[in-house]
């Protein structure tokens, strides 16, 4: 299962304008201008073999760059598993 550590605090945190979201059940701070795509980049998960759900709705790859994050958003990220 995807393991997420708390991200390094962004410098912008110092100004108290970051927003808090939940990623796979863990709280995380992101910039106010963050999108699903920027979050995935930050997590090193912009490789395409993942499914992303935002507030119980799947976010397709084509929508990720424009889908803005808001305080309290709940994100689930699932990585494709190939073993068996």
């Amino acid at each position, binding site marked *: *299962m*995807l393991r997420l550590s708390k991200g390094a605090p962004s410098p912008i945190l110092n100004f108290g304008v970051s927003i808090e979201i939940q990623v*796979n*059940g863990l709280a995380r701070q992101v910039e106010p201008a963050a999108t699903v795509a920027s979050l995935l980049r930050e997590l090193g998960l912009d*490789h*395409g*073999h*993942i*499914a992303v*759900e935002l507030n*119980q*709705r*799947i976010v*397709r*790859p*084509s929508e990720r760059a424009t889908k803005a994050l808001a305080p309290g958003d709940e994100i*689930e990220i*699932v*990585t*494709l*598993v*190939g*073993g*068996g």
Partner: protein
Amino acid sequence: MAWTDSRFDRQIRFVHLGAAGQERLEAARVLIVGCGALGGSLAMQLVRSGVGQVVLADRDVVELSNLPRQVLFSETDLGRPKSQAAQAALQKIGGPSRIEAHDVHVDADVLLELAPRAQVILDGTDNLATRYLINDYCVSRHVPWIYGGVVGSSGLVLPVLPGVGACLRCLFPAPAQVGSLESCQTSGVILPAVQLVSSLQAGACLRLLAGKAGGSEPEAPRLTMVDAWSTEVRSVSARRDPACPCCGMREFPFLDAPTENAAVALCGRNTVQVRPQSKSQTDLARLAERVRAIASAVRVHSGVLEFQVEEFHLRVFPDGRALIEGTEDPARARAVYDRYVGS
């Protein structure tokens, strides 16, 4: 039905099955693609549950490192084709199941041969290429299949019900490139994770087979993640994507591709599988005679010819397919194949 009187008494008492559901299980045919960790556990659950026809397909042989998680195999099976060893283990359970074993690499041609009478296809494969092929087949023919994947202590399950919920490509449009994901070779895998994933797959399968006797109408399934170490369970909605290349646009490139590469590296195993250019039966006894002069440790075991030549260990199957251990380079393996098995 005689079986249902006593053997399946506890299942018949289960409210979602009942006698009608049990009869549906006995009338059902299920294809399990891959017969290793997930596939073996799936087959055991289906046979014990009394599914009437269980079709097994696997390209591999039993190895020592399989035993901790591949529940159907024993030390006495080492070197045996997995489908045969699994069939023998399952037949000991008895009951109404008829078990078919196919010692083959499942490509589009083989799938088109094995799948048509199956009501459900279960994923016991260890690679994404075969899963995208199964997805193409099942969406194009409107047959349910149940994806399962496992690595480390965790895994994923998605029942794909064409017309009802997402297909694999709605959620993961393109297969990952070889080597870009964690594999059982790089990240290991533990039996509890295999059992969790295969049990969710098997439960979904029995529910599908039980049909209306199984209770509610099918609802859009969810993609479920489970972890046998952290005990975490999470799931996401698996709604159809109208723009999905497979179930939306009805493009089936994995099924329509003429043939995949004739030589493919088996992930992380230092082994390449080479398939013959044309399909024909190979006379293994004659081949054994031919290579005896140049190879060592030549033997035919459970219908598989094995020998050692140069730094390679070869296993040749009756359909002409060979597993060549000692390289991960498909071109090199192809050359070894042509040299010793014949093109």
